[in-house]
């Protein structure tokens, strides 16, 4: 076992512990529980970062091209955003919504092949780092917006039904959730835009042509369009609250479909991902 693997396993263990605590905290509210969970996530994140860096040192390229690396890196981006959100807004329950998903991602990453493959010549470019990091961070922001969107819908249901109970007390106000959702999309959208542009530039360099009709490209543009609508509708028509939440959920589901669909079809230029 090399250092990267050891640190990856340690990170997984810490995320697992954090997930357990987050589930307990979901049913039994308590400030200490949330603090312990946050501490575990921070420790896990540090270990995770070390594992990625050491894999980078071994492989000599940003470890983001095999399925194992991609899911691990996506989890890393999500944890990073989650920690920033926690620091900035302190939404206690967010961990209970996010950590189980992150743990499942990390677990699947751990079960995928960890061998370091030689990069195909087309990927040996500095564009690889720029394009993929932008895309992954953007998608992680959309994933968070998805989680926040669900929280919004739950809270909105409580208020509209006139029977606030269950999680009502512990969920943040609608206004907070709406603002965080908006903030995340305003972070994710430029990242996605830059990822698409850098991808196009890279494609032009590698294959001579900005767009190649690759399914991933098509889906990326569809996703981009959806989030463009979310932002435009909010600014122009005041589509906030419930509609914004629903759109951000649809947007992320589109991303998931794109990911899963392309993975299953194994076609196109992004096969390695």
């Amino acid at each position, binding site marked *: 076992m090399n250092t990267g693997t050891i640190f990856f396993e340690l990170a997984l263990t810490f995320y697992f512990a954090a997930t357990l605590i987050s589930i307990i905290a979901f049913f039994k509210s308590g400030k200490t529980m949330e603090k312990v969970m946050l501490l575990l996530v921070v420790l896990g994140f540090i270990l995770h970062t070390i594992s990625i860096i050491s894999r980078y040192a071994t492989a000599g390229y940003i470890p983001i091209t095999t399925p194992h690396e991609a899911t691990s890196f996506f989890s890393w981006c999500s944890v990073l955003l989650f920690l920033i959100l926690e620091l900035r807004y302190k939404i206690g329950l967010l961990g209970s919504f996010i950590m189980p998903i992150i743990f499942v991602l990390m677990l699947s990453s751990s079960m995928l092949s960890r061998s370091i493959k030689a990069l195909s010549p087309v990927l040996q470019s500095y564009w690889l780092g720029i394009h993929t990091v932008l895309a992954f961070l953007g998608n992680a922001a959309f994933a968070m917006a998805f989680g926040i969107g669900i929280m919004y819908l739950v809270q909105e249901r409580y208020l509209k039904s*006139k029977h*606030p*109970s269950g999680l*009502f007390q512990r969920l943040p106000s*609608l*206004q907070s959730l709406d603002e965080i959702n908006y903030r995340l999309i305003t972070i994710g959208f430029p990242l996605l835009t830059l990822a698409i542009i850098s991808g196009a530039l890279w494609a032009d360099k590698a294959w001579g042509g900005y767009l190649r009709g690759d399914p991933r490209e098509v889906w990326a543009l569809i996703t981009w369009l959806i989030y463009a609508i979310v932002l435009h509708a909010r600014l122009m*028509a*005041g589509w906030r*609250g*419930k509609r914004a939440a629903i759109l951000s959920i649809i947007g992320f589901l589109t991303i998931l479909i794109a990911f899963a669909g392309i993975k299953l079809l194994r076609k196109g230029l992004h096969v390695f991902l």
Partner: protein
Amino acid sequence: MNIFVVGLNHKTAAVDVREKLAFNGQKLEEGLMRIKTLPEVKEAVILSTCNRVEMYTNVKDTVKAYESIKDFISEFHGLDRGSLEKSLYAYENLAAVKHVFRVASSLDSMVVGEPQILGQIKDAFEFALRKKTTGILLNKLMKKAISVAKRIRTETKIAENAVSISFAAVELAKKIFTDLSTKSVMLLGAGEMAELAAKHLVSSGVKEVLVANRTYETGCSLAKEFNGRAVKFENFVHEIANTDIVICSTGASKYVLLKEQMHYVMKERKHKPVFIIDISVPRNIDPEINNIDNVYLYDVDDIQGVVDSNVQGRQKEAEKAEAIITDEIETFQKWQSSLDSVPTIIALRDRADAIRKEELERLLNKLSGLGEKEKKDIEYMANAITNKLIHPPTAALKEDAEDKDILIATIKRLYGLNEKEE
């Protein structure tokens, strides 16, 4: 030493009786000093709030103490014994401990879980401390009651949800808006409940109050009360475009705000959320409005429903709290029994006697040729030595000291009395 509680509360006495028996202002000090000087009473704390008057005491004999406390109250407040006895209750020892714990934890309050009572208990205790009317037993009892109340507050959700209409309104507003200090509220019409809700919103930091009343002058004077602004009633629909919370209670017989109007308003305010509370009966606002996105309309029954379910929730939490109290009574009881020095005194004396007898026997067997008188003298001396040696610890054990439990433990350890206790 008996913990003894005498008192009355909102359940046993009407307000006219309670107010007569209240110990407020100067009366509290006077009453506390008087009750402390009753021959039966060793320690005393008086709790006097608008819902209850209670005397927590440490007494020698509860039956005699009850009589003399009743005499004292009826004389002090000028109330005849007959009507007093109807409203009084008394608890002794464990029942008294339980009662004090329940009162401090707000389980005995009119509104279960209300937060004020704990502060009142603290004040009552601190006052008694300052007046030096408490001792080892009540000090421990009151401190324990306060810590039990805090434990219940943190371990259960007994004080979590609002149980009055106006507080429920504030609570709901806080789940729609993040920061009330950037929000404005409009009072549509006037009514006691509406004004109360507005007051609570203002004390929660609402930025601005608008008042729209059919009679503009009434609106103006009400606006003044809230440091707000009066608007013409005809314009109120237009004003909602800039208001975040509307409290409506106009007494109109028809809807004053229709769905179409609200659609227009929402467009005007760019679909920013709005919270509308319709307290009027019959309702003044078309209930259909709740179906518009970002509009949250609650009528009086809706809010009452929230309050009711909160009350139920508190009832459930109260059960958990009772379990905690049972648990804490047990630890208190253990502490209290550790205070009882009699078994230790007996054990100490037994131990000394056993040693004396053993050593005497051995000595007398050795010195065979002794006469009766010499034997008597030796026995006398042995007796005197043991008595003089155990006298100081025995005397210390009989005192009422703050650290008596520690003293008992120390003496047991020093004299090796721990093996068998009876």
